[in-house]
């Protein structure tokens, strides 16, 4: 098990280095060089000399290689994600302010998703082709086909304007854990994000359970006289959990992407909104920093999913070592 975790960790580090390379390289090739961000900060009336000076101040006149190594050095050895020239704050300060809010949002809807989607998928598989199954599959299909911001807007329309009168936006200037002390403002964003992920995961769960249920060992269990309920939970469900753990791990980027849209609709000041603002302001260090952080969260999620799977299923541990 130890070697499996180590090997998987090593892989993650390699991937992380590649992510670093990508997040650094892409904005580097922006068409207007330093001019566009410089104008964003200095104003459009800035003259060429000022722009050049500003570029030099932010180390933008060095070559690609020099800048890349400076960037890696700064991140790896000084744990410094850079300085946002638009907000005049270190990127860490911006992230530290907003990341807890995004994490609480994503985590609470992930937990709700697991609690709702897995039983829903199993029930759909068990009552295949009944009215219940069709209703659930149909609504998942529609939710899946809907732009996520449209769902959020319809939720506001239905539960904020027409009934219940829930707040359409959570309080902003509060502690990140306000979600638990003053939950009413957070109901709509969390519910929207949960619905979006339930649509995907429950459909997947249904498919996986159905796939397991045609396996020989399930038929054997039935033939031995095992009750259909016991077969479902002891044999089919347990074996379907493996792929679901992987999918939950893989769903993290989608969850964070969905969080970006949900945050924008409900004006929930988290990392998503900050990314949108930073990207439209051409605040490159902030965008790079947030993207890197979110990728690290994703990698960590995948790592946890894989290690959990390895703990549960010895075949996975051995497979890679051959």
């Amino acid at each position, binding site marked *: 098990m130890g070697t499996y975790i180590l090997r998987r960790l090593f*892989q993650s580090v390699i991937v992380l280095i590649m*992510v670093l390379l990508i997040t650094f390289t892409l904005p580097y090739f*922006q068409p207007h060089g330093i001019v566009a961000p410089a104008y964003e900060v200095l104003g459009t009336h800035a003259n060429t000399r000022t722009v050049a000076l500003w570029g030099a101040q932010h180390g933008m006149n060095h070559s690609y290689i020099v800048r890349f190594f400076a960037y890696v050095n700064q991140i790896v050895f000084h744990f410094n994600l850079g300085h946002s020239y638009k907000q005049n704050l270190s990127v860490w300060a911006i992230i530290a302010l907003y990341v807890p809010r995004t994490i609480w949002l994503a985590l609470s809807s992930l937990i709700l998703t697991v609690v709702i989607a897995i039983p829903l998928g199993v029930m759909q598989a068990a009552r295949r082709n009944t009215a219940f199954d069709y209703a659930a599959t149909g609504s998942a299909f529609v939710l899946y086909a809907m*732009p996520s911001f449209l769902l959020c807007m319809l939720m506001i329309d239905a539960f904020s304007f027409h009934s219940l009168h829930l707040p359409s936006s959570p309080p902003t200037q509060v502690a990140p854990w306000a979600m638990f002390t003053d939950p009413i403002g957070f109901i709509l964003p969390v519910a929207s994000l949960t619905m979006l992920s339930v649509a995907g995961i429950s459909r997947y769960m249904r498919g996986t359970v159905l796939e397991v249920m045609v396996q020989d060992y399930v038929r054997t269990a039935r033939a031995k006289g095992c009750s259909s309920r016991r077969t479902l939970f002891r044999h089919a469900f347990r074996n379907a959990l493996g792929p679901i753990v992987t999918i939950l791990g893989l769903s993290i*980027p989608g969850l964070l992407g969905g969080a970006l849209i949900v945050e*924008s609709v409900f004006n929930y000041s988290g990392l998503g909104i900050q990314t949108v603002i930073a990207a439209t302001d051409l605040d490159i260090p902030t*965008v790079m920093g947030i993207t890197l952080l979110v990728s690290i969260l994703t990698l960590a999620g995948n790592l946890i999913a894989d290690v959990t799977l390895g703990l549960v299923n010895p075949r996975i541990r051995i497979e890679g070592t051959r």
Partner: protein
Amino acid sequence: MTTNIENRISSELAATATASASGDRGDHVIPMWKQRFRIFTHNKLAIASVVFLFLLTLACYLGPLIHPTNQTNQALTFGYKWNAPPSLHHPLGTDSSGFDELGRIFYGGEYSLTLGFLAGFITIVIGTLYGMISGFFGGLADTMMMRLLDAFLSIPYIFLLLTLIAVFNRSTTFLIAVIGLTGWWGNARIIRGDALLIRNLEYSQAATAMGASKMHIVRRHVFPNSISNIVTVATFSVADAILFLSALGFLGLGIQTPQTDWGTMLQSGTSQVQNGFWWEIYPLAAVFILVVVSINYIGDALRDAFEVRLIER
């Protein structure tokens, strides 16, 4: 429970068997594509979806000829009413800028549909090439290509898209290029899995043993046998591209004025939601959802049509 499902599969097999037996099944073998077409056309929902998409595309391009509207000048220029409810003159009302909503749906549809199909196409071509090369040739190349893919996949897609569009360029061509060139990672992984699986199957090994070249095996065995996934994944990519474009439209980074796309339109419509201007949201929302649902249905039906177990030779 189990028997139920197995019954279903065998009855489906029997249904296809009788379907083809009742046809012109004499001495000659029915061509594969004909059987696939038959299975596809058996699915009523999929046929409805194809018809709907066809009619909608036609409407988007030919509709403006029947219902000509001004989609360049805003209300103030001509004294049109904005946010006007549906009337004989404006079947779906006007939006907050005074554009005729029905004409706007056609106009935005041209961009959303074209972009979706083009970007989806680019996605599947690159994904297939990458996945095939990586899965079939294996070894060090495979490891490196897969780690690179892991890196791409661990950057949440919408963050990357947002950055690229905001930082670089907001032209329509660039939107197609960016969604096409960055959307293939998932596809590549699926197709690579297929290629890897098929490469190790008995018939590929037999071909190798008989001295077939690698190119021959890819052309005659790996590609034809993974075509089912390629086609299915391609359909879903088109739906995804349309959805991602709409998300960008919501963030204000979609197709820029005076052109528009459905995402941008939905965004401006939903910002009026508290005023009760339903005609700015629901007709378009219904069309949008139906488009994506139809594409997904077609994808599902295609997967069935290419499912070899359902084909009787």
